[in-house]
């Protein structure tokens, strides 16, 4: 190792053309590096397109294991002539640039090292597989990068086997292609050292696994007992139901009879998707749908029905940038305000805010319990960054607790009650009422569910009193639910601080890194990570305990900031400040440290 080189601390970027198969190559590199015990944080920046547009894969490697996005790359693989000029401009000074030999470097930058590789020529002469030549060309750069960063070739082989887990036939051709690159590096660049190097390490990633949030949520749905899922394809949510289908094919099919213990329906649109889930929830199945912004807009009417008629349903919103079509492949936290009160009239919903893949798994299960317990829609607000990128995590815990199916009266319950019950009667004083499921064999079981005015016995009414009473009970039910939502996670600085930060969802990862950076600048901050709406009372105490509280989020209008201001008394609301990031790229730590240092007047 050259003295002064940076170990396990760099940002790698591959700039390629989408549809060319570069995703597999990037995953191989990620898996290979992760297998060396080195923390990885990949971010896939892709276009809303099938083939031919620019795509970037950014892989952050840092010894502390930060998972937030960083800015410019240290090492670039440039394989897209369209973006070559700007990609090159973005490389940090002193960085390394592996590029197609044909691209001109004359007079552009002299503060980076160039590693020209004749990728096209190598692909033509060295890759025998005509059908897969385009895809395998990307594996050539994997070999070159392995050489340059000193990744052992057996780690690359591991990465290939892991990436093509289900296609062992693909292993050899990929290993061969990577070898072409590795040999090219050995022949041409072996004695050229760069600033960055990777070395096997221990201690940070021990026992960790890699999973995408949508896959974790799908597994959560399986473990949470979901039996009906209805969906309409939409980026970035589709992979949730696609993963659910894969799990269902593997674990929910009776090997003898071929019977499936789940119905997964690709609906005609999001209206129908949520409608099917609500129909199934009404019948007593654990039902869900998964969508993103435009789909959420379409689900507004049905969400109001499920709130008012009190039907359990779980709705995943994998947020992307809006308004309208927005940037379908870019991340966002801008659905928060809309989802919280989705539908016309006085409507309020339970919203879970997972910040990690582990929480995607946990909250997916919890969402079904909460929906059944409170007989209402439960939204799980993930985002593209969490849902579609790989994240390091501890292996998930096997759930021990039984399902909470909520207040359901069976035929024998009705027997005991001598048939005396009312669908919307608050008999327990918690505003959560009892329901029966269609098909319950008791003469008193049936009742009529409707989105129009109804009394405590579910009869149609336009009575002013009955309407107001019911709405008041729904508000009280919401308060009961508030206490059952996941508590925020408080992380104090060593000596406590007058400055607090509130964040939620994927913003968490940038906050973790920003707090370390701020600490180094002498500005320790306390941190409260909110995990659900409605906000619990402890949120107010956090604000009370701090002079200034910065609410950090990934939307333009400060939607959580607004929610906090609504909830807090005026003197506390005045302590809030809003920090917002909303360009569609996952928030980097710098987007928090910079404004915070400035606002706290810490000399830069």
């Amino acid at each position, binding site marked *: 190792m050259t003295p002064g080189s940076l170990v396990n601390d760099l940002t790698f970027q591959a700039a390629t053309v989408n549809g060319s198969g570069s995703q597999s190559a990037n995953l191989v590199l990620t898996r290979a590096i992760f297998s060396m015990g080195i923390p990885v944080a990949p971010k896939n920046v892709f276009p809303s397109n099938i083939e031919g547009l620019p795509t970037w894969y950014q892989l952050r490697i840092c010894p502390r294991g930060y998972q937030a996005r960083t800015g410019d790359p240290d090492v670039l693989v440039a394989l897209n002539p369209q973006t070559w000029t700007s990609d090159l401009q973005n490389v940090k000074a002193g960085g390394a640039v592996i590029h197609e030999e044909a691209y001109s470097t004359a007079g552009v930058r002299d503060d980076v090292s160039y590693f020209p590789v004749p990728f096209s020529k190598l692909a033509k002469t060295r890759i025998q597989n005509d059908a897969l030549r385009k895809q395998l060309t990307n594996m050539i750069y994997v070999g070159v990068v392995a050489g340059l960063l000193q990744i052992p070739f057996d780690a690359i082989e591991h990465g290939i086997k892991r990436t093509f887990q289900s296609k062992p036939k693909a292993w050899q051709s990929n290993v061969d292609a990577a070898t072409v690159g590795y040999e090219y590096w050995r022949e041409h660049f072996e004695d050229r050292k760069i600033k960055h190097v990777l070395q096997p390490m221990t201690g940070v990633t021990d026992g960790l696994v890699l999973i995408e949030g949508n896959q974790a949520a799908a597994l959560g749905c399986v473990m949470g*007992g979901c*039996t009906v899922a209805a969906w309409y394809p939409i980026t970035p949510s589709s992979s949730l139901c696609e993963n659910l289908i894969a*799990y269902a094919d593997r674990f*929910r099919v009776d090997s003898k009879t071929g019977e499936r213990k789940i119905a997964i329906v690709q609906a005609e649109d999001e209206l*129908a998707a949520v409608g099917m889930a609500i129909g199934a929830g009404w019948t007593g*199945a654990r039902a869900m749908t998964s969508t993103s912004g435009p789909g959420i807009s379409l689900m507004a009417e049905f969400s109001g029905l499920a709130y008012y008629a009190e039907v359990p349903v779980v709705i995943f919103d994998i947020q992307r940038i809006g308004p309208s079509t927005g940037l379908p492949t870019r991340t966002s936290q801008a659905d928060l305000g809309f989802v919280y009160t989705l539908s016309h009239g006085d409507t309020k919903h339970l919203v879970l805010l997972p910040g990690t893949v582990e929480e995607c798994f946990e909250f997916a299960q919890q969402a079904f319990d909460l929906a059944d317990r409170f007989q209402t829609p439960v939204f799980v607000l993930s985002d593209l960054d969490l849902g579609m990128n790989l994240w390091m995590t501890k292996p998930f815990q096997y759930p021990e607790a039984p399902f909470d199916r909520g207040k359901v009266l069976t035929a024998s319950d009705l027997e005991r009650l001598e048939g005396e019950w009312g669908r919307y009667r608050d008999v327990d004083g918690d505003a959560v009422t009892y329901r029966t499921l*269609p*098909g319950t064999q008791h003469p008193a079981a049936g*009742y009529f569910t409707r989105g129009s005015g109804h009394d405590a016995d579910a009869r149609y009414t336009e009575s002013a009193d009955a309407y107001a009473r019911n709405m008041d009970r729904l508000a009280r039910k919401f308060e009961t639910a508030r206490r059952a939502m996941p508590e925020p996670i408080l992380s104090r600085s060593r000596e406590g601080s007058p400055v607090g930060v509130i964040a939620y969802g994927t913003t968490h990862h940038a906050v973790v890194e920003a707090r370390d950076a701020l600490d180094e600048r002498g500005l320790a901050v306390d941190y409260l990570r909110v995990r659900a709406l409605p906000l619990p009372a402890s949120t107010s105490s956090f604000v009370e305990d701090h002079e200034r509280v910065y609410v950090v989020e990934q939307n333009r209008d400060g939607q959580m900031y607004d929610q906090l201001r609504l909830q807090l008394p005026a003197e506390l609301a005045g302590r809030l400040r809003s920090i917002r990031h909303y360009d569609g790229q996952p928030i980097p730590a710098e987007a928090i440290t910079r404004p915070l240092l400035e606002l706290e007047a810490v000399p830069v």
Partner: protein
Amino acid sequence: MSATLNRIGLPRDAYKGAATTLCAGCGHNSITNHLVKAMYELGIEPNLLAKMSGIGCSSKTPAYFVDQAHGFNGVHGRMPALTTGAQIANRKLIVVGISGDGDSMSIGLGQFLHLIRRNVDCTYIIEDNGTYGLTKGQFSATADVGSVQKRGSVNTYQPIDPCALALTLGCSFVARSFSGDGKQLVPLVKAAIAHRGTAMLDVISPCVTFNDHDGSTKSYSWVKDHDEQIQDVSFIPYFEEIHVDYEPGTTFEVEMHDGSHLLLKKLGQEHDPSDRLGSLRLIEEARERNHLLTGLLYVNEAMEDFATHERLPEVPLRDLGEEDLRVSQRDFEQLMSELA
């Protein structure tokens, strides 16, 4: 005098619902009565019935029959989605959806088509009056060209025919009837309930308040003058013996999947109810004659219904518990190790 009980020991009153709030003389109320009669005679278990509807006058009617059953009056045009979800969550339910021409042919047209495409096991009744009654008399999409609104304006747009549409989509049971014709409608409803798959009945049901005047083609008098019955329909449930004798060549006999039988005695021209193209031709020819063709247009007992196609178990999905649904501890650990 004690009431006559049906085969499961229930009186006819057990199939009644709340008092109707629709206009006196509304065709929908007659349909409700025919539904009560059909379900009583079939001996439907009220607790197994799920009554579904959307929004509109038609969609109020599930409240007016089988009070003991569960009902779900959802949102406008979205009954098919709720029905699909309810049916797959519990295959044992007898799902009856009531919709209207506004609910199914305009705002809910997409869902109507896709429910049929999936062949969801349900009875789907469109109470078709050609008008938006609850909002006071606007034309609906089933109003015929030249049909006159109460205030005099004339419809100039092509009508959507629910039966023709259902036929082109391969609906496995398509019939048209008239609210005033219990003799025809009751056996059709029974057959629709016995059918496994989507059974679509377009029932012309005059709106006495907004669409029962001269110039309307959905009025009582127009339907009475123009009704052309394809067959004389009778239904013999599986629990009754068949003892009918008919001349060969005069009657089609359809055996339903539960062992019930539909007997279709030819009245006008020959029609084979397994001939989809022939049904479409019949509808079109009747339209050219300015006639309303009623009866069973098409039936296909062989088509798989949605839940069967999806290989769902007979036990309702909603009755499955942790043991059935969670991955075992061993498999879960295997899954986790695959992620390393």
